[in-house]
C-alpha cells in the first residue's frame, strides 16, 4: 500500500474519531514527510468542520445561538434595578391619597433593599467580586480560575470564591463547594465546572461528574446546569450529573429534576431513584436505578472511555491495556514544589454501569506489566448510595520480582488505608469502604522508567474466584 493510500485510511479514521494512539503516531510520521499530504489533511479537516457548522445551522438554527449568546450577557445595573422595580411595583401602589404607616415602612424596606443591592452591584463592578460560595472540601489536584482569569492551584478549604471555574485535573481530584444558601456541589475526578450566581445559580459542567444537594430555590429562579448535550433545571433536590462529550447522565436521589436535550429540545422530569441519559442518538427515557452488584471487572478492551492513561488496543500476543501517563501536580503546603506521578485510572460505577458495592471481605485483583521492579500503589474512590463523595483508600500491590515484568496479584480490602490526601476529613468520612459504591480505581507509581501498564482490574466478593 502506498503512503498516500495509507494516509487516506488513517485520515478517514481520524475524521471519524476512530484512530487509536498507535496509528496516530503512524499518521504523524506520514504527515511529517510529505507536505502535500499535510495540505490535503488540513483542506479536508476544514471542510469536515464546515459541514458540521452547516449541519448545526440546519438542526438548531442560527437563532438559537444568537438567543443563547444574548442570554449570557452580564446584567447591567439599570436593567437589574428595572427588573426589581417591576417585581415590587404591585406591592407599592403609587396612586394612594393616604399612605398608611405599614406601606410606608414597606417602601422604606424596598428602598433599603435596593440600596443594598446597588451597593452589591457597585462592589461587583468596582471592587473584588463578592463571594457566592466557599470551598469546603478539597483533595487531589484541583485548579481554580476566577473571573479575572488567573489560574490558581494553591487553593484551600475555607477559601471564599466568586463566580469562576473549578477544574479537577486527575482521576482522584475532589472538591466540595458550598453556596451561601447551603446548597452543596461536589466535583470529582477529571471534571470542569464553571459557576455563577446572578439572580439564579448557573453551572456549566464541561466534563466530568458533580453531585449536588440543592437547597430549595425560588420557584422562578431554579438552579440551571448546562452540559454540552443537555440543560437541567433544579428547584431543590439531590442528584448526580455526569457529562461526557456527547451525552449527559442524570441520577436523581431525592425530589425531581427537569432535563432538556439540546439537540431536539425534548424535556422530561426525572424523579427519585431514576436515571436518564441525554444524548442525540437516543430517547430521553428515565429508568429505575438498578441495584448494586458486588462484582466488577474492567473491560479495557472496549476502549478508552472514561479512563485516564494511554489506551493501547490489543495487538499480536498482547491484550488491550492502559499505560500510566505522567501527571504533574503541586502538593498542598509544598509551595512551588512539583511532583510527577504516573497514573492509569479506570471508571467503575460511572455512566450506565451498575453501581458496584464493595464489602470488607472483598478483594481487588490487578493484572499488568512493569518494566522494572518498583512500588505500585493501588487506590480507589467510594461514594455513598446518593453519589456523595465518601472517601479514597490506598494500598500497595504485593508484587514479586518477575523477569518478564508481567504481574497478577490480589489485594484484600483489609490492606487498604485511608488515602493521605483525605486525612483532613477522616472524622467526617466513613472509616472503612464497607457497603459503599466504588466510583473509580487507579494504579500509581512514582518511578518514571517503570512503564506501568494495566490489562485488567477486578473486584471480587468473598467466596468467588477470578
Amino acid at each position, binding site marked *: 500500500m502506498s503512503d498516500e493510500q495509507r494516509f487516506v*485510511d488513517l*485520515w*478517514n*479514521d*481520524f*475524521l*471519524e*474519531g476512530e484512530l487509536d*494512539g498507535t496509528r*496516530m503516531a503512524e*499518521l*504523524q510520521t506520514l*504527515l*511529517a514527510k510529505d507536505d502535500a499530504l*499535510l*495540505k*490535503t*489533511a*488540513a483542506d*479536508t*479537516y*476544514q*471542510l*469536515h*468542520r*464546515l*459541514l*458540521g*457548522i*452547516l*449541519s*448545526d*445551522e*440546519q*438542526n438548531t438554527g*442560527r437563532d438559537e*445561538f*444568537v438567543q*443563547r*449568546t*444574548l442570554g*449570557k*450577557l*452580564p446584567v*447591567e445595573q*439599570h*436593567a437589574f434595578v428595572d427588573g426589581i422595580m417591576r417585581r415590587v411595583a404591585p406591592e407599592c401602589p403609587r396612586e394612594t391619597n393616604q399612605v398608611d404607616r405599614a406601606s410606608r415602612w414597606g417602601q422604606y424596606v424596598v428602598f433599603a433593599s435596593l440600596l443594598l443591592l446597588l451597593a452589591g452591584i457597585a462592589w461587583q463592578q468596582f471592587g473584588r467580586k463578592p463571594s457566592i460560595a466557599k470551598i469546603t472540601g478539597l483533595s487531589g489536584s484541583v485548579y481554580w480560575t476566577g473571573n479575572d482569569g488567573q489560574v490558581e492551584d494553591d487553593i484551600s478549604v475555607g477559601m471564599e470564591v466568586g463566580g469562576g471555574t473549578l477544574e479537577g*485535573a486527575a482521576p482522584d481530584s475532589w472538591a466540595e463547594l458550598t453556596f451561601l444558601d447551603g446548597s452543596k456541589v461536589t466535583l470529582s475526578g*477529571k471534571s470542569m465546572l464553571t459557576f455563577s450566581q446572578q439572580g439564579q445559580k448557573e453551572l456549566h459542567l464541561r466534563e466530568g461528574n458533580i453531585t449536588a444537594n440543592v437547597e430549595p430555590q425560588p420557584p422562578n429562579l431554579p438552579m440551571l446546569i448546562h452540559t*454540552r448535550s443537555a440543560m437541567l433545571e433544579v428547584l431543590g433536590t439531590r442528584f448526580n450529573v455526569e457529562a461526557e*462529550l456527547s451525552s449527559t447522565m442524570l441520577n436523581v436521589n431525592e425530589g425531581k429534576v427537569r432535563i432538556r436535550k439540546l439537540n431536539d429540545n425534548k424535556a422530561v422530569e426525572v424523579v427519585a431513584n431514576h436515571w436518564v441519559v441525554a444524548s*442525540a*442518538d437516543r430517547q430521553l427515557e428515565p429508568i429505575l436505578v438498578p441495584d448494586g452488584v458486588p462484582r466488577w471487572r474492567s473491560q479495557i478492551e472496549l476502549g*478508552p472511555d472514561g479512563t*485516564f*492513561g*494511554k489506551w493501547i488496543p490489543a495487538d499480536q500476543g498482547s491484550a488491550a491495556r492502559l499505560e500510566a*501517563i*505522567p*501527571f504533574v501536580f503541586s502538593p498542598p503546603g509544598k509551595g512551588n514544589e512539583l511532583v510527577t506521578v504516573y497514573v492509569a485510572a479506570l471508571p467503575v460505577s460511572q455512566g450506565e454501569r451498575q453501581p458496584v458495592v464493595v464489602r470488607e471481605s472483598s478483594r481487588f485483583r490487578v493484572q499488568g506489566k512493569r518494566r522494572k521492579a518498583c512500588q505500585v500503589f493501588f487506590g480507589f474512590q467510594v461514594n455513598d448510595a446518593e453519589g456523595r463523595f465518601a472517601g479514597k483508600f490506598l494500598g500497595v500491590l504485593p508484587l514479586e520480582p518477575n523477569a518478564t515484568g508481567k504481574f497478577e496479584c490480589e489485594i484484600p480490602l483489609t490492606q487498604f488505608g485511608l488515602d493521605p490526601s483525605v486525612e483532613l476529613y477522616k472524622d467526617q468520612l466513613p472509616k472503612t469502604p464497607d457497603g459503599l459504591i466504588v466510583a473509580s480505581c487507579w494504579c500509581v507509581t512514582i518511578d518514571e522508567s517503570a512503564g506501568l501498564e494495566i490489562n485488567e482490574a477486578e473486584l471480587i466478593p468473598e467466596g468467588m474466584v477470578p
Partner: protein
Amino acid sequence: MSERNTEPEIEVEKAVERIRKGDVAAFEVIVRHFERPLRAWLATQSAPGVDVDDVAQRSFIAAYTRLDDYASGTNFGAWLFTIARYQLKTETTRIRRVADYQNRYAPDLLQQELDRRDSSLPAVQAERLECLKKCLEQMESRLRRYITWRYDEGIPLEEMAERSDRSIAAVKKQLWQLRRRLHECVESRLAEDGGVL
C-alpha cells in the same frame, strides 16, 4: 468612519454607539452579523475537541464587556476576530493541559498547518461556508445522502453501510471522495467569485 464602509458595517457601528448609550438589545445586531463568519472561522481553525459555539459565545461576551476599548469607525469585525483568536488560544492551551490530549485527538502537524492558515482573512471561511452550501445543493441526491447521514443525522458508519448495502470500508472511501469533491467545488466557486484565497 471610512467612506468605504458597507451598509452592514455602518449598522454595526450604529449598534456599537447604541450599546454604549445603554441599549443592550442593540448587541443582537452584532451577534447576528458576525455569528456565522465567526463560527465558520473558529471551526476551521480549532483542533478537534474545541467547542466552537462556546468559544464564539465567550468572544461575543468579551467584546461586549470590553466595548469601551473599541475605537469606533476602525473595524469592528477585525477587533472581534482578534478577541476570538485569543479566546481560541486560551481554550486550546487548556485542552493541551490534559496530558494525553495530543495522543488521542490531534496530530501536532495539523494544528501547525491550521495556525499557518490563520493569517488568511477570517471572512473567507464564511464565503467558503456559503459556497459549500451551494455545492451540496448541486450534488446528486444519491451521493448527498452520505453527507446527510454523517453530519445531519450523525449515524454510525455501520448503519450507513447497512443502509447503502455497502461495506464499511466502501462507505469510508465514499465519504473521503465526497469531501475531496466538495473541497474542489468550493475552491473553484471561490475562484470564480473572486474570493480571497
